[in-house]
């Protein structure tokens, strides 16, 4: 668009942003934006809340937190102990032991943490991690700053994986099934039984999850050794975006590759049904790239336009969002390709040209009709096409809300679109450093066909029983196979039907490697001796082969890797050094890479034959079951910190909901939290309703991931529901992936209520102006630097220390993913309290993400705002504490002294931001107690004090890390450099939205962010016009969102012109 000329600026300022009937914006939002039934989110939310019996909602919903199961014995025991203790006047000091090492390892200094680099195993993206261990015990997983895939960040699932290591419900010993019961058995017996079985037959198969490292190569060698065909290895991931893209590129270019996308170089990103931020190919890499793409400096910033039917987290972060009919993504892509193709300045030639021409001619009539059904005029497509041609742009298509029969077709049209835009080798790289596909497309269908003939099946680190729709009958097939051996790091549904359930190593206990990008290898090494009696999955196979006298020439999987990595040394060209030294260097750094080059782009083939037929747009209600961005396909459901982080859009924790457009809900006469019965051809499901603005009226969204009823973990056991039962057996003809979206559904209201455990009970901004601030591009150009600390104050200037710690959160970059909430809870030993306590409003997370809907119900603007303790200079909470439990540190921190707090809770009432959390209960760690509050794995950080009940706690800006950094600085005699200390949330934020540093140092990033024209203080009024709000002078400042399309910003929000 280039720099706007002055008349463009004036035109923009005069043009009323919204065709409002009259100028009076003062009144609440619903009056000035016309809508069919409900204009604004505030009105519809209040409407749907009215009449909902808040306390009676749902039999299950009554918060059981109140029946703290007072059993007489328990109460009397505790009470007598308390009286006896107080009676014993002077208690002799208990004698404690100090037990040193026998041979102290040289690099281990008790009290000083050691870091190991490894690779995260939670999903197939292969992010590099640094594991902080203290006294040989992993304490925290953090992204490896040098690792190119995730550049130091980590998603919520990666952070929460440490809870999986210490999870008390991991299998303690190998189990063998006798009838309905699993009984413990010795490892030797397992090896001998399975050894005999392997000796007798060669019909053996291995079903495993996605992995890009040498793991699959090892399995192939094992199969070959036992005489099984190469096709007996079935690799499958529930996130079928991998296989869709790989299959599409196989059809288009002849090789199943996944393009590595670099959005940050582009200017315009157009997404059609894409959810790359939540679950796509590599969510953390995508978030880092998107964050760089949207950074605003000297007037230039990237724009993101999204066409989608469901309100996904990615769509919520789009600058302009079009709501399209469910299943119409393919039509929209073709319409966009048509506008691009017909655009005069398009540069396209060869096969792409002929393909586009033939495609558009065959679907001429359907596309003409599509404009009307989509209610998006052709001019809109043409304007977008011109914008895409003029600026550097690319298209991203497909996502977990579009895993239907046409998923791979949509990818093919996406490839065509990007060819027209010339995005390949500029933003989508397939010739140099493309991403390997962790799975072979179509393996599930092959497994369902071939599995019944198998005698032995090894299911390793995968849970097809839960993640595939029931109609595919995977559980039935597993039951029919004589011996199924399930080797998982955490028990799952396969253990219910398998003959053997063997405890596999957790990612932090196992060897391995990943090759996320071709030529780039990332190593995984164990950081702790196995905590339970588990074995490396590959070692189990080796032992079985050994006992069946068909052993492989490797002592264990480490030896196998050691041998395979010799090829990696040759390939990466570091030949000067001895191999063992090279291996140790890679172990220390974590990765090694030399991107390979291929000429795939040139071998483009004509794939228009696959796009001959288009599925007609079916009207009526359709159900989609997207993947949950917290527990992926259900693999994270046993981690309490993920269950309690709350979904990005609906903030619902622990439960599954059916999101429906509020207008459709009113038409059906439903109310929030009312239970409806969804019935499709395949089955029925009773699920509570959640009114979600921004959905298309004809779509019902019911996320997957929760609903484990296998009673393997009390955490995930009947938390939420599994919607996969509603999908009949259908598959994408090209990639053979199961269909989990766009199935016609009927909704029947029931009289039951089920109260969803939502963290946030009110969803709009209630007409308040100094919470979420937005600024559009023209006014940003003229905006000046801010001085937020210039607030009139009656008291003399506070005597300040050497530093003044402050934080800046950029709301334009925050995508609301919740990784910071998971990281903060792990770092600071924050307990999880369970569903009923969340309903009561007693969640304990120190940072919460507020999500506000704003504007029209059908296309709302969604704003995310992470709120932690603001560390105010004039803190209302400090003045009211009677015992000095919370005082102000001269370095700008609000210090919370847990042992001094007596629990009057006045500070929490006085805090205008409500960021303080109270310990209502004492939580038992490391066991699965009767009460929901006592179910916390013992993944605790020894550097942070654990709080007992009756004590207030809040974000301390990671004061432990600050203290260590200052000791370091004092030792070396210099000040703490900017960026040397990172808070846990800043460290893991995938989109660099949080900045922490010393506000006294004018050059530090946080000082610059605090003076940024977009900077403002939460509840800080409107300083330019002399209103200073609450004058609490917070240490945390926010950077307002940028409205790149000047969309829908009422008058009172716009910065004043005079």
């Amino acid at each position, binding site marked *: 668009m280039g720099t706007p000329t002055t008349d463009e600026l004036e035109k923009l300022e005069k043009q009323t942003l919204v065709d409002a009937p009259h100028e009076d914006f003062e009144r609440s939002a619903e009056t000035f934006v016309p809508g069919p039934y409900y204009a604004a989110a505030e009105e519809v939310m209040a409407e749907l809340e009215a009449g909902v019996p*808040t*306390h009676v909602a749902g039999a299950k919903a009554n918060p059981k*937190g*109140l029946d*703290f199961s*007072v059993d007489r014995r328990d*109460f009397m025991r505790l*009470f007598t102990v*308390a009286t006896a203790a*107080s009676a014993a006047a002077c208690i002799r000091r208990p004698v404690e032991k100090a037990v040193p090492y026998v041979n102290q390892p040289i690099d281990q200094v008790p009290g000083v943490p050691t870091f190991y680099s490894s690779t995260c195993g939670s999903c197939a993206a292969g992010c590099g991690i640094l594991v902080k261990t203290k006294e040989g015990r992993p304490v925290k997983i953090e992204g490896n700053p040098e690792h190119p895939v995730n550049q130091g960040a980590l998603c919520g699932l990666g952070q929460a994986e440490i809870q999986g290591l210490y999870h008390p419900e991991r299998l303690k010993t190998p189990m063998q099934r006798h009838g309905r019961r699993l009984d413990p058995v010795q490892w030797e017996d397992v090896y001998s039984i399975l050894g005999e079985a392997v000796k007798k037959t060669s019909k053996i198969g291995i079903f495993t999850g996605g992995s890009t490292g040498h793991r699959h190569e090892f399995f192939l060698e094992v199969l070959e050794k036992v005489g099984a065909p190469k096709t007996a290895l079935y690799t499958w991931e529930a996130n079928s975006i991998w296989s869709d893209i790989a299959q599409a590129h196989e059809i288009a270019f002849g090789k199943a590759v996944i393009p590595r996308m670099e959005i940050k170089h582009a200017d315009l990103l157009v997404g059609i049904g894409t959810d790359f931020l939540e679950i796509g190919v590599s969510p953390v890499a995508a978030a880092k790239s998107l964050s760089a793409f949207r950074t605003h400096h000297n007037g230039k910033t990237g724009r993101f336009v999204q066409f989608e039917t469901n309100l996904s987290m990615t769509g919520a972060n789009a600058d302009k969002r079009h709501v399209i009919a469910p299943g119409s993504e393919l039509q929209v892509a073709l319409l966009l390709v048509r506008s691009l193709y017909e655009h005069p300045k398009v540069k396209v030639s060869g096969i792409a040209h002929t393909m586009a021409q033939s495609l558009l001619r065959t679907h001429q009539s359907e596309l003409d009709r599509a404009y009307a059904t989509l209610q998006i005029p052709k001019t809109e497509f043409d304007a977008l096409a011109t914008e895409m041609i003029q600026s550097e742009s690319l298209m991203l298509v497909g996502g977990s809300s579009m895993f239907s029969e046409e998923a791979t077709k949509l990818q093919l049209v996406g490839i065509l679109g990007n060819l027209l835009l010339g995005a390949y080798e500029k933003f989508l790289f397939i010739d140099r450093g493309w991403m390997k596909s962790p799975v072979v497309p179509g393996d599930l269908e092959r497994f369902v066909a071939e599995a019944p003939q198998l005698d032995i099946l090894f299911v390793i680190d995968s849970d097809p029983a839960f993640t595939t729709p029931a109609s595919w009958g995977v559980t039935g097939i597993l039951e029919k196979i004589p011996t199924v051996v399930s080797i998982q790091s955490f028990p799952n549904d396969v253990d219910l039907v398998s003959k053997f359930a063997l405890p596999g190593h957790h990612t932090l206990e196992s060897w391995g490697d990943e090759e996320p990008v071709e030529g780039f290898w990332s190593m995984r090494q164990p950081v702790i001796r196995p905590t339970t009696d588990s074995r490396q999955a590959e070692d189990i196979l080796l032992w079985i082969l050994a006992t069946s006298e068909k052993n492989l020439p490797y002592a264990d999987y480490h030896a196998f890797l050691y041998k395979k990595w010799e090829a990696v040394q040759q390939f990466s060209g570091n030949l000067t050094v001895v191999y063992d030294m090279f291996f140790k260097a890679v172990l220390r750094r974590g990765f090694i890479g030399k991107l390979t080059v291929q000429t795939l782009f040139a071998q483009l083939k004509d794939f228009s034959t696959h796009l001959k037929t288009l599925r007609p747009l079916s009207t009526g209600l359709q159900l989609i079951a997207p993947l949950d961005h917290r527990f992926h396909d259900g693999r994270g459901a046993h981690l309490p910190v993920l269950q309690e982080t709350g979904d990005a859009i609906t903030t619902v924790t622990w439960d599954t909901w059916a999101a429906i457009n509020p207008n459709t809900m009113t038409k059906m006469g439903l109310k929030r939290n009312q239970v409806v019965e969804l019935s499709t051809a395949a089955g029925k499901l009773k699920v509570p309703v959640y009114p979600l603005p921004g959905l298309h009226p004809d779509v019902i969204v019911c996320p997957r991931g929760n609903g484990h009823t296998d009673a393997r973990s009390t955490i995930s056991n009947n938390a939420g529901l599994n919607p996969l039962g509603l999908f009949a057996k259908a598959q994408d003809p090209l990639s053979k992936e199961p269909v989990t979206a766009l199935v016609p559904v009927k909704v029947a209201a029931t009289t039951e209520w089920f109260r969803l455990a939502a963290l*946030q*009970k*009110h*969803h709009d901004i*209630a*007409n*308040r102006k100094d*919470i979420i601030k937005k600024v559009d591009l023209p006014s940003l150009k003229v905006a000046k630097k801010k001085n937020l600390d210039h607030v009139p104050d009656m008291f003399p200037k506070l005597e300040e220390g050497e530093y003044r710690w402050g934080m800046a959160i950029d709301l334009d970059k925050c995508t609301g993913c919740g990784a910071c909430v998971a990281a903060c809870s792990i770092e600071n030993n924050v307990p999880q309290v369970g569903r009923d306590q969340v309903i*009561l*409003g*007693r969640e304990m997370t120190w940072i*919460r993400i*507020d*999500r*506000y809907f704003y504007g029209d119900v059908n296309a709302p603007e969604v704003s995310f705002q992470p*709120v932690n303790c603001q560390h105010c200079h004039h803190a*209302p909470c400090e*003045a*009211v*504490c*009677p*015992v*000095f439990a919370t005082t102000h540190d001269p370095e700008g921190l609000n210090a919370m002294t847990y042992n*001094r*707090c*007596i*629990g*009057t*809770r*006045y500070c*929490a*009432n*006085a805090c*205008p*931001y*409500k960021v*303080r*959390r*109270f*310990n*209502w*209960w004492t939580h038992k760690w490391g066991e699965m107690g009767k009460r929901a*509050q006592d179910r916390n794995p013992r993944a605790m950080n020894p550097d942070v004090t654990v709080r*007992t*009940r*009756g*004590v*207030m706690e809040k974000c301390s800006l990671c004061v432990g890390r600050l203290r260590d950094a200052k000791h370091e600085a004092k030792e070396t005699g210099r000040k703490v450099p900017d960026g040397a200390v990172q808070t846990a949330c800043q460290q893991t934020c995938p989109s660099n939205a949080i900045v922490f540093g010393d506000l006294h140092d004018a050059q530090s990033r946080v000082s610059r962010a605090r003076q940024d024209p977009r900077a403002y203080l939460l*509840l800080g009024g409107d300083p330019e016009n002399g209103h200073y709000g*609450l004058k609490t002078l917070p240490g945390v400042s926010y950077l307002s969102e940028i409205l790149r399309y000047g969309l829908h910003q009422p008058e009172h929000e716009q910065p004043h012109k005079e």
Partner: protein
Amino acid sequence: MSDLVAWDKTISDVNEGILVGLKKPHPSFYVALSISVLCLIIGAICWAIEITYGMGTTGLNNPVYWGVLITDFVFWVGIGHAGTLISAILFLFRAKWRNSINRSAEAMTVFAVITAGLFPLIHVGRVWVAAYWMLPLPNTNNVWVNFRSPLMWDVFAISTYLTVSLLFWYMGLVPDLASMRDRVTGYKRIVFNFMSFGWTGSLRQWHHYEAGYGFLAALATPLVLSVHSIVSWDFAMSMQPGWHTTIFPPYFVAGAILSGCAMVYTLVLPLRWMFRLEGFIRKEHLDCLLKLTLLTSTIVAYAYGIEFFVAWYSGNEYEWAIFQKRAVGPYAFYFWVMVACNCIFPMAFWSRRLRANTAVCFIVCLLVNVGMWFERYNIIVSSLVEDFLPSAWGHYEPTWIEMGITLGSFGWFFTWLLIFCRFFPLVSMSELKLIMPKPLRKKSEGH
């Protein structure tokens, strides 16, 4: 005043009339005592459960960190203030009708403040450290208490108020103890003589007694106004919309006196019947008390109105949102019960006929107390539930533990009150004689 009252008793039958009530109390005394002890036990058990399991057993949550327990605390402190009002402020105003009910009012004050004193310990998260960390004792940590915190002001204010009203009440009791000493023999005589410091009723003692009583009343008067202002600062010192207003001190003091007078009336009526004191606590005295209740009810009504006006007039959208939601939001029930009980029902006292009908007055005064409890509940909960950030809005419902403790607090209060009435004269004999017709030989001379 004494000529308005139709006295049918002389000062000679005062001692006889009052002390005979103590010999064999009406059987209903034992029924009342057993009920209140039962409630006390229920409350004690609930508190024990809460201590054993933690504050999670109450319905409190984030953002509503205070609820029923703090409502009880302010309710009981409020009730305490009427006692000092009647005994101190009306003493300075030389209001004659106070002499008949001042002893019961002071007793109510002392026991109400004792009950209120319990609640900071009940609602606090860690009571086993709170008890001694709230006092500025020298300690090995060298850390003192935060004198700028309203809760610290509370500790000092309420302990001073308890001490002063205790002393005030006991000094008033000394002459009566002496008269009881003169009517009993044996060990009781020694006990009463010790308790009345050997009071002989000599003019010297009366001279210094009256002077001291005057100064005590003078000191207690500002104390009454300050203590409930400090209790109101517990809320006004925070930035919470709906709390952060300067009207809170007078508003709370008026509310306190209203609930106090209503409570005095609801207590004196049954106790008068139970101990057969109709001869001494006359209808006219109670009539003046009802007039005082009417006055304070109008003040409180004004306070409600002005609070709404200030919120709207201030143009601060947070304040105005809170008050709108109070009137029409999910907690409107508590608000309208409060307004009805505190402002509308007491208007019945305008008519003399209704004031004479004790049944109506008893019900209205009971409702005023209910209304005052709801007022504190409404102030605390309805502004905590929805304040600045819409995302932090919540919902609060008390649990049976909190209700059990509230019941226990009434049990605790009435147990103490009934034990006091059983052993000590409910009416101050020496002061009653002051307002009864003087024993003169020539009738005409008396005014």
